[in-house]
């Protein structure tokens, strides 16, 4: 590694078996993502965006090939190390927010700090600070059901930041939001990327996100079709 690369994908292949058929969700992807870069993964549904997202995030295992995060091949990690990676190195943001419904915004954001071993009080303080920074300082005791879609996504962003990860992975983060709210979320993510040097990888087909990113990786049929500078 010469340049400061944080994510390296080498000949990444993921096949699914459905009955007798083999579906090639990913069919040999090579990609380097630099530290602090904002990369959009773009493509029609079924092009392998989400599969790529899952593999980078250590949520799924490749059929072939390797994912290196900070130079470490994550397929070599045991369950403990993988959990640590998900907890400390990567923050996840989903299209459908995936907040825990029974917990308040504050508890949701503090949850990753529990797994990181942060003392409870300290984790809550950190969560409150993060919620304030995403503009929800007055709603920390609300449950997800009492918040709008945009506010829920803000909570999810705050949760993704809870353990100061190096990488933020976002899967269609604006997919369930209206134009205005989507733009606000993009601005928030873009700001974090620029201000804190967070590496941001977002699967999307939202034109607003594509415009904001440093690089766009176009996927088609499980392959990288082209890469363009944003």
């Amino acid at each position, binding site marked *: 590694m010469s340049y400061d690369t944080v994510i390296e994908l080498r000949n990444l292949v993921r096949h699914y078996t459905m009955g007798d058929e083999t579906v090639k969700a990913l069919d040999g992807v090579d990609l380097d993502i630099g530290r602090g870069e904002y990369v959009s993964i773009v493509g029609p549904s079924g092009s392998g965006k989400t599969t790529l997202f*899952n593999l980078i*995030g250590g*949520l*799924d295992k490749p059929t072939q090939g390797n994912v290196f*995060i*900070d*130079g*470490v091949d994550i397929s070599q990690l045991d*369950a*403990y*190390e993988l*959990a*640590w*990676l*998900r*907890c*400390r*190195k990567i923050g*996840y943001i*989903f299209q*459908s927010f*995936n*907040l*825990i*419904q*029974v*917990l308040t915004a504050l*508890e949701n954001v503090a*949850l*990753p700090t*529990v*797994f*990181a*071993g942060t003392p409870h009080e300290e984790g809550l303080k950190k969560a409150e600070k993060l919620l304030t920074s995403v503009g929800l300082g007055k709603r920390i005791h609300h449950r997800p059901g009492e918040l709008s879609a945009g506010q829920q996504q803000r909570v999810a962003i705050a*949760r993704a930041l*809870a*353990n100061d990860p190096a990488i933020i992975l976002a899967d269609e983060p604006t997919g369930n939001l209206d134009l205005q709210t989507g733009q606000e979320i993009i601005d928030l993510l873009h700001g974090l990327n620029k201000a804190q040097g967070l590496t941001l990888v977002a699967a999307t087909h939202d034109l607003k996100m594509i415009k904001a990113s440093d690089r766009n990786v176009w996927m088609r049929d499980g392959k990288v079709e082209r890469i363009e500078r944003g």
Partner: protein
Amino acid sequence: MRGEKRMVYFTISDAVRLGIDYIKRRFQRTAINVASIGLANSFLTSLIMTDLFYATFNEYQGSSIGVDAYQYWLVAVALIVSVVGITNAMLISVYERYREIGTMKCIGALDQHILMLFLVEAIIQGAAGGIIGYFLGVVAAVLSSGFTTGFNIIFMVPIIELLGYLVGTTILSILLSIIASMYPAWRASKLPPVEALSYEL
């Protein structure tokens, strides 16, 4: 990332705190499980107590009344039915929480943490059902045997014996609740995160 200590943490007290949150905010399902254990235990307790009251009565009166042995078989069936009912309710609760389990795994939970979370809930349910069932059972026993032995019979039984049965039947209830929850909890813990996250209820 090499050289750093790669640890994730989730203590029993974290599990208890989260477990209580779940129970408080999804009270209905918990209430059904607690009622199921509670009824089974109240049946068991009422039999044991009636037996105990009769034995105490016999000591004083020199009589020989007792509980029919087949009733204990009925209790055994009641306990088994309650275990099956709880297993069913817990499985539904796992399905409801598919996405949440996936989310927890995304933010650092290991299989054993998910397992712990479900078992803590099982223990709380078992304890609550056990204690409630015990007191219902004592009341039922006093009412059913009181006409023969006199209602003050309960004061003739040593209090330590009553407490002993409270502890014993509560432990049994907790064990049954754990047994009933083992399979659902194991299934929840083994869920692959990707599958759990894409699950639509």
